[in-house]
């Protein structure tokens, strides 16, 4: 048993950290947000050159062969740097494609994804986020919509979860190109300044060749879990940075003749945040390491992770703002951006209660009828 990173993993972590510290500091972010494009294509080019879209893809497809740990490391860096570029969405999508989309027919497409020339994003954050798929000769006909799809306006392709039965649980995964007839995207910005959209599918035909998974609910559960992991790792990076900023502020902000960090009431609130941060850190790495386990063990670890991540994101976000006083509620301060990112993380992929119930069912079995 060990919790150490390999040499390659440490290198990945340091490379990303250095790159983002230089090219994605807070001033750059503010400039990007002010420019109304919603993202920096030059920063995205840099991340592409570093091989980020290729990270989850297999080496035989020109990828870097990264697993859950590598994905979590990259996502953590994205959270620390408050990236609005589609790193986390891309890691997630490409991990799904690597596992369920590798056929000779798609070799060229996957190479384009690895090189960042094309970009896929998943449209679901839960197995309940399913559109209806009706069987037709040669493929499926899709009806439905997907709300709050992160980076939808930037994607060339969508990974759509669908149900082929009367059940609301997704069992089918399809690729739909952004320019397909019947697909519309309503574009907007999220609470954490990221580009997103609602995706509407009206009579969208998907040919057999673009179907990745049929009748396999566990595959969809796995796909959701990858997203849950990377978004939680993103929250870990953001929460850690928020606490660092808060501690700095407590050391420098002078009131009543000295730094406010000398007050024990404030110190103990910081320590409670540090304890929660350690717990989130543990949860992220344990969940990442559980990706090789059988589905039930993985699901339990991921459900537990989201319980911890949702609570911790809320707690550290709110405490950081409070400890910054009035400055915490201004967009001038970096902390307010982390607060909004952490708020989003607490909600994405389902809030605490639903994951706690799922965890309980996995550990104790379903509730008997009362």
């Amino acid at each position, binding site marked *: *048993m060990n919790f150490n990173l390999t040499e390659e993993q440490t290198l990945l972590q340091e490379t990303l950290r250095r790159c983002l510290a230089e090219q994605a500091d807070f001033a750059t972010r503010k400039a990007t947000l002010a420019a109304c494009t919603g993202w920096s294509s030059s920063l995205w080019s840099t991340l592409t050159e570093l091989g980020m879209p290729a990270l989850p893809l297999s080496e035989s497809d020109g990828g870097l062969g990264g697993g859950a740990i590598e994905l979590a490391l990259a996502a953590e860096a994205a959270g620390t740097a408050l990236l609005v570029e589609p790193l986390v969405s891309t890691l997630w999508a490409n991990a799904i494609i690597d596992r369920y989309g590798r056929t000779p027919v798609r070799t060229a497409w996957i190479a384009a994804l690895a090189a960042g020339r094309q970009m896929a994003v998943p449209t679901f954050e839960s197995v309940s986020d399913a559109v209806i798929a009706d069987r037709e000769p040669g493929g499926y006909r899709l009806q439905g919509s997907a709300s709050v799809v992160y980076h939808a306006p930037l994607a060339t392709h969508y990974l759509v979860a669908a149900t082929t039965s009367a059940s609301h649980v997704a069992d089918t995964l399809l690729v739909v190109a952004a320019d397909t007839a019947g697909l519309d995207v309503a574009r907007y910005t999220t609470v954490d300044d990221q580009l997103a959209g609602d995706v509407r599918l009206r009579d969208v035909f998907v040919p057999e060749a673009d179907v990745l998974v049929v009748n396999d609910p566990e595959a969809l559960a796995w796909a959701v879990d990858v997203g849950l992991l990377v978004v939680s790792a993103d929250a870990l990076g953001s929460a850690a940075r928020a606490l660092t900023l808060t*501690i700095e502020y407590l050391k420098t902000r002078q009131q009543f003749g000295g730094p406010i960090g000398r007050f*024990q009431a404030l*110190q103990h609130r910081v320590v409670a945040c540090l304890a929660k941060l350690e717990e989130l850190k*543990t949860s992220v790495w344990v969940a990442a390491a559980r990706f090789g386990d059988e589905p039930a063990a993985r699901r339990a670890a991921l459900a537990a992770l989201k319980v911890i991540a949702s609570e911790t994101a809320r707690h550290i976000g709110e405490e950081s703002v409070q400890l910054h006083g009035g400055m915490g509620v201004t967009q001038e301060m970096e902390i307010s951006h982390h607060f909004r990112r952490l708020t989003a993380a607490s909600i994405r992929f389902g809030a605490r209660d639903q994951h706690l119930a799922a965890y309980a069912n996995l550990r104790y079995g379903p509730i008997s009828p009362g």
Partner: protein
Amino acid sequence: MNLELSEADRQFQEQVRAFVTAHLPADIAERQLNGGKLAPAEVLQWQRILYEQGYGAIHWPTAFGGQDASPLRQYLFELECALAGAPMQLSFGVRMLAPVLMRFGTPEQQRQFLPSILNGTTWWCQGYSEPGAGSDLASLRTSAVLDGDHYVVNGQKCWNTLGQHADWIFCLVRTDASSKPQRGISMLLIDMKTPGITVRPTVLLDGTAEVNDIYFDNVRVPVTQRVGVENDGWTIAKFLLVHERTNIAGVPWSKRDFARLLRIAQSRSRDGRPLLDDPDFRARIARLQIDLDVLEYTNLRMLSAPTADKTTPSILKYRGSEIRQAISALTMEAIGRAALRLPRPDDHEFALDDELTRGITASYLNLRKLSIYGGSNEIQKNIVSQVTIGL
């Protein structure tokens, strides 16, 4: 990153499990797992069994009769023992005094005291806290004045755990009153049968006398029973604090208590179904299980890290206390009005007091101590704050 135990560690864990299954007396296990009481002799009996099977103090170096066990193996050992219902080893000798003697003691002291700690024939207790020196330990005032080849000790110790059964006590005393508080402290080993020692039990929340006040009235202690350099006892006290961190989170006992909570929640009913299926209760127990799982892995993460991290032990201490207290509080809620019973030793045992309710309230009351002793939760937060904020 790898959560699996190595083959060698897995085999070690299985050996411990097999040993405990074969050698732990069934009646002791039954009482430990179901809220019964243990006699002091039974605690020593278990230490003797451990000693005979080579498990007397696995964390000690092999030269002193230990196994030089890694922190991970110490954890696995404690976990197997706790889950099977073994008594907790008396930490004062095995975990606290022994490492001090190995580091600061003379060869004579090591020869005199270590073997009887290992084989369970000497019961040690600790004399640290005083009425005026609790969290602020350095302000202790029990004095030791040199008189020939003896110290003459006068003063009062409190919160002394189980000293009524002890053969010996290791004490922090003031040997120089003129210097600043952390200087002028020394550690003495004192035979409890020495004339001038009075032990007065303090009755605690649960009605038992787990701790004592100990009074020293001109107690003569040979100079050869001082550990380490005179006036340098604070170094030893600090050494003990950083040394004893493997099990600072108390995960094995929390896991044992949690298993009982789960049994109770499955057995008792609310509104015609198992308590575990009551949605509100279920959410609380599940949340607590997540906390416990995360605590265990955070603990393991610290044990596997080669570098000494100054904040994690304090975080583990205070979170470990909170979580174990929360388990005991939820267990008390789970048994409803049965929690109102707190039988005294001379009360009749009620027929209704079964293995699902016995000792639960006493345990809830008793465990309030967790967040107070060994550096209260607030002191732990001060330590973390000192390292991270530094103001």
